[in-house]
């Protein structure tokens, strides 16, 4: 068990950042913490890192207490904090060597530079690196001692899609080596594409937990189907399978359905009995984004726009 959290609460005076979180994370996954600003993601991650002390509850990371066994834990976790602060007058290589010296064992700085794609920038001062390069260097620092667990707080915020994909690849590679990753993110497609488990947090509570697929399946949202036939057709068999006909859009008839697989089975039957051929079929499943918006409630789309800008 990488992480075990029981009835975790964290309050700052009258503000309750976490209100009784229970969470167990098995070894070897990529877990994404998703939620609006101020939901408690950072508080949760920083409690795991030992930077914040819980108000109540039990926390164990790699079998260790982040407060009482901080020394041991720090050697085994790799951390990227939300705001990357690094000495500006050192080169990328010098910075990695500095952090390497803090650990009893560390990887050669050159290897880590290659892994995060900063080999050509090894002798560039940190102050002259771009935002994306700094983020990659921050990830490099988190990897320098060969940790068992990565805790990344918004590792890709503010990056362009290419830089983000490059970072995803580094994280996947770390995961393929059998290690665990916990990351917070604002990007739904990041959670969907990178994580095998997504935990949605809202106002200090876990409101959803599962694989991206499970979350979508569990959601209320309906799928949309666009179907085009070779001639006139009778929609009743599809309606009997739970589809709702919304009329025609060009050559396509639009249907919505909670259970689109049943509609497709009925569609096969319809084609045979009404002697028609199918000229086109398109389907749109509800996305994780629809699920997310449903979970975190009203007023969020504006924030999401902000975050993705």
């Amino acid at each position: 068990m990488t992480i075990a959290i029981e009835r975790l609460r964290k309050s700052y005076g009258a503000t309750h950042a976490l209100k009784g979180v229970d969470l167990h994370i098995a070894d070897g996954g990529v877990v994404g913490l998703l939620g609006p600003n101020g939901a408690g993601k950072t508080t949760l991650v920083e409690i795991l890192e030992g930077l914040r002390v819980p108000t109540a509850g039990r926390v164990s990371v790699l079998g260790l207490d982040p407060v009482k066994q901080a020394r041991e834990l720090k050697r085994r976790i790799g951390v990227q904090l939300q705001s990357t602060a690094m000495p500006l007058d050192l080169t990328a290589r010098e910075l990695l060597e500095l952090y390497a010296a803090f650990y009893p064992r560390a990887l050669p700085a050159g290897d880590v530079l290659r892994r995060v794609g900063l080999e050509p920038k090894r002798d560039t001062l940190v102050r002259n690196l771009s935002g994306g390069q700094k983020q990659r260097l921050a990830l490099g620092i988190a990897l320098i001692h060969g940790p068992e667990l990565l805790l990344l707080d918004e590792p890709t915020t503010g990056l362009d899609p290419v830089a983000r994909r490059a970072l995803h690849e580094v994280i996947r590679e770390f995961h393929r080596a059998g290690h665990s990753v916990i990351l917070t993110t604002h990007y739904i497609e990041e959670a969907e594409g990178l994580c095998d488990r997504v935990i949605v947090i809202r106002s200090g509570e876990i409101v959803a937990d599962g694989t991206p697929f499970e979350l979508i399946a569990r959601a209320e949202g309906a799928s949309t189907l666009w179907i085009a036939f070779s001639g006139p057709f009778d929609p009743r068999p599809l309606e009997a399978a739970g589809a709702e006909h919304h009329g025609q859009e060009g050559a396509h008839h639009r249907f919505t359905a909670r259970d689109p697989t049943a509609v497709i089975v009925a569609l096969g039957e319809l084609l045979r009995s009404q002697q028609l051929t199918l000229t086109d079929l398109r389907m749109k499943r509800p996305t994780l984004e629809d699920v997310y918006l449903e979970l975190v409630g009203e007023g969020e789309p504006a924030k999401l726009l902000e975050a993705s800008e």
Partner: protein
Amino acid sequence: MSQVRSFLALYRGHLLAYRRARTAIYWSLAFPLFFLLMFGFVFGRGNPEDTRFVMPGLFTITIISGSVFGIAMRVVTERETGILRRQRVTPVSGVAVVLAHAATALTTLMLSLALQLVVARALFKFHIVGSWPAFVLVLLLAGAALIPIGLIVGSVARDSRTAPAISNFLFFPLMFLSGSAIPFVMLPLWMQRLGRLVPTTYVNESLQGIIVRGEGLSKVAGPLAVLALTSVLGVSLNGLLFRWESTEPVRRERLLLVLAGLAVLYGGAYFLTPSLGMAHYRLKG
């Protein structure tokens, strides 16, 4: 053992960064040079004999500015920008972090002093009456005693705006009460009394002993002992106040403890001064 390695790596990193930062070089080299020229040409009227008399004061002032200002600012900046927070999630200890800053400050201070010595030798034929090894030892001990004060300012200051204010506030008593700007005997009696309560008085006295009066280490052992104790006490007490993050509060009871610790040390020094062999520091009305 790994903390020693961390310390050395941090120290090396600070020096590399120092070499690349122009403003840092300006403050630690150009400023002391300016002070030297002012002391040499104005107070020493450019002649070697008079200049030698004002040099202990010059070195004392250089040591004050080199230990109370820069280091406090560097600690506060690292805390404010979150560099310390990032280091907090690694196994590096606060002691290694603090000592690396102290060692860096001591190194740059020694560079400033070395520059002053070279230029003073060239322009004013500066030489010391006592022994060079003793002189260097006094400079090192003086730096070691005053740098913890800069560390404590760095630990206590709320942000990068309050740090220089506190440093300035300390700069003037450390300078004027020590007799480094104005000779001790010219100070009014109450200021002479207060002077025994600041570490720089003991710096100035040791430097005068070696540079002007040609005394050996045994003669200045008293003030040197006060400086050594200040150094050890200062570094330990700073450990009580060190903060990794700006959000951590300054513990008021710990600050009081630190002030009490320094008060005990300097209270003792106050009463012992006459028997420390500090002939020039007997009160004269």
